[in-house]
């Protein structure tokens, strides 16, 4: 091929790219821990950025992982997570066909948007929430209508006001990542009543297992009353299977049947399916994690108060802290101490960081690093 041919080919490829893809920038994930440690020159890395559970997977799931027979790696898994769906159905009193398991909850977000949106449609969500609803809509060519949070919480009236005849899906993160605010069952019901089945309402309950508030709604329990409700859950957070990538959605059987048409089968590996199945049985793990989070949050908020830092601590295994400096600078400075947090500019909270609450040693190391960083900045 001549240089001229190569130029022409490149121009031809450019013409194939849709405008909404040209405008979109690929998300660049963090580098692997070993590379980060080498770059920043630190000998340890405390991961307080991704809301992972430091207790690790429940013991029964851990055993599955430890004893997974290598020959099984050569065999395709169940293409639609058959046993896991049956288990979920038993557990939550629904039919197996009301569940769809995906390669992490991120994948099921894409399934729902693909199933219901076409050119000219839009979705409605909050401006300061988990980014993937907005990203998937945008790079799929659909408008993402973003409603500002009110007092750090999803604004139900604001969201309803943005609905038009081309609105297909409303995404609510409950509790919200990163603010930890949540809608009570009463508020969620009121919202669903106002939507009146005209749009799909997705309630992302990625952190629901951490919530101990009595008025927190059980989305799965509302599906029978609201067939337009789709609930997302994940095994990445409470069940500590983030590395295996497994999450699911649940909804009315007819709605899930539509979503299933867009679903890529065999995307969830066999080890993840088996580990998730065992993890579901372990209630002790949930209690232990909740206790850890409760104690760590109490300690951390006390220390943050002592440092004079504003913080927002709601539900979930994380909290947000406002800093007197750029969050991305704070990220770089904390990394030199081997402490990795999430900078919040990308969540549209400039000068805030989100911290995963975890084991006492990690919390102490974080507080020390914060104190030193603030001392040098003064």
């Amino acid at each position: 091929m001549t240089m001229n041919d190569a130029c022409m080919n490149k121009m031809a490829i450019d013409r194939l790219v849709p405008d909404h893809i040209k405008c979109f920038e690929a998300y660049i994930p963090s580098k692997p821990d070993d590379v980060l440690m080498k770059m920043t020159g630190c000998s340890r890395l405390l991961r307080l950025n991704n809301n992972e559970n430091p207790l690790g997977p429940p013991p029964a799931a851990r055993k599955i992982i430890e004893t997974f027979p290598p020959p099984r790696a050569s065999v395709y898994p169940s293409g639609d997570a058959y046993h896991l769906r049956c288990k979920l159905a038993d557990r939550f009193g629904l039919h197996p066909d009301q569940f769809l398991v995906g390669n992490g909850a991120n994948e099921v977000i894409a399934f729902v948007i693909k199933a219901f949106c076409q050119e000219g449609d839009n979705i409605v969500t909050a401006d300061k929430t988990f980014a993937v609803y907005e990203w998937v809509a945008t790079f799929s060519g659909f408008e993402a209508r973003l409603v500002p949070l009110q007092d750090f919480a999803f604004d139900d009236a604001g969201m309803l006001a943005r609905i038009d005849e081309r609105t297909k899906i409303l995404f609510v993160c409950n509790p919200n990542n990163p603010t930890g605010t949540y809608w009570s069952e009463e508020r969620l019901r009121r919202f669903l009543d106002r939507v009146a089945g005209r749009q799909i309402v997705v309630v992302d309950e990625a952190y629901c297992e951490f919530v101990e508030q009595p008025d927190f709604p059980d989305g799965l329990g509302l599906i029978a009353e609201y067939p337009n409700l789709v609930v997302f859950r994940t095994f990445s957070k409470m069940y500590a299977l983030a590395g295996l990538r497994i999450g699911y959605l649940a909804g009315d059987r007819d709605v899930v049947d539509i979503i299933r048409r867009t679903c890529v089968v065999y995307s969830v590996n066999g080890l993840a399916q088996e580990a998730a199945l065992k993890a579901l049985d372990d209630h002790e793990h949930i209690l232990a994690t909740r206790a850890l989070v409760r104690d760590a949050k109490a300690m951390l908020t006390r220390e943050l108060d002592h440092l004079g830092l504003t913080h927002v601590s709601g539900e979930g295994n994380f909290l947000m802290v406002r800093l007197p400096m750029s969050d991305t600078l704070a990220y770089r400075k904390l990394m030199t101490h081997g402490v990795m947090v999430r900078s919040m500019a990308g969540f549209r909270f400039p000068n805030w960081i989100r911290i995963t609450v975890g084991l006492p040693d990690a919390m102490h190391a974080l507080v020390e690093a914060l104190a030193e960083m603030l001392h040098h900045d003064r």
Partner: protein
Amino acid sequence: MDTMTPKKENRSIVMNMPVAEAFIPLAAAFVNQAAQGLGLDEEGADALSLATEEVIAYLARMAQVEQDVDIRCSAGSCFIETKISLPVRELQLHAFNMTATVNADDEAGLDQMELLIASRMTDRFHITRSAGQRLVLALIKELPYPEIKRDTPSPTPGKLSQYTLQAADAAYVKWFLRLVTQYYPDALFPLDFRYPGKVVDMAAGGDYQIVTAKGPAGELGGGIAWRWEGRKTVELFGPYIFQEHGDPQMARDLMDGCIGHVARTSALALINRMPTPDLPEGYLEALEPKRNDISGDDGSPARARFRMMVEETGEVVWAHPDVVGFLQSEYRRLVFPRDIQTAGSDGEADEPFSVLSAEIDRRLSVATLRPIWPGADNAKNMAAHVELLGREAMATILFEMDLGQPWQAGFTPGLIALGFFPRMILPHAGSADLLIFQLRTDA
């Protein structure tokens, strides 16, 4: 905040033709008519047409084999641009130095430099080498706009107890600019702000984003503006607060609004070269080092500020040993994890001729040189460019070195010998960071 105006695609007219003297009138006529059709006045279209003629004539005389060029005439929000693009073989590249003449033995000097002549007929001119080995010569003529009238001052808006952030429409853009130019010194806003019609057009085209703080009765309390510089950097202007004693909360809200808008885009960094006294503490970091240790500098305090929009995860950069000390010190100050690898000539065979791209902004009297190709003559070539740009009365001459391209480090000794000093690092502004050199004013 209201939805902002997305950047609009430029309207374009394209022609493909062989590079040959017989087609020079065709190219000139095409550009003239296209430019006028796209909104440029006759005088401007004539200038653009003559510049195109000069470039095509140069290419025709230089070309050793028959080839085609694409000529694209586009309407930007406030300018008309002609881009002449052609595939180029490495051996031809040196002819695209602005200092090149068709006949190297010709002693007639500057008058024989066709590319320079073309640049003189335009407001901005640059040559870049795009992916796919194409060379693109861009000739840009700004649309004419009247300058803002400052003889009738606008009354000072009072303190606003309530306000909302809103994207400014044309009327508010003009009001905003009247107040900015009235309350702030010229050094704290871009030259564009003196031309309200231009900024209105640029805002409508998505080239400027302007957000204002509006009171319940429509009063204008303050505002902030930003524009994209390439795909990875956003330049911010302000915040501007139109109250005698400022309003720190409004300034923070404007900064939050700007950052919130830029978040989740391709922007990696936000830069503010003209921070106002209203800029709230803690949002931006000092981009430039304190420079009083560099002789010949004016000793002015560091001014430009920036923030990263994303989490920095580190990368390898390449630099000549002569600037490693500067980079180490700066990366330490900025807390940027970087693996600095040294690069430069170890006696390996070089191409004979280097190529530099020159971007000339005659309104601002700024020239920026960028290396396109390394060569054994790089020091001599840079010296020729510096001399030429000095004669063209460029007050500021910059050199952008991409620290992600090891071969560019080879230009460092020549730069330092000519009197350039490393001024600042622009994080992630190239394939890695850009190191900006500036020619000392006494050099």
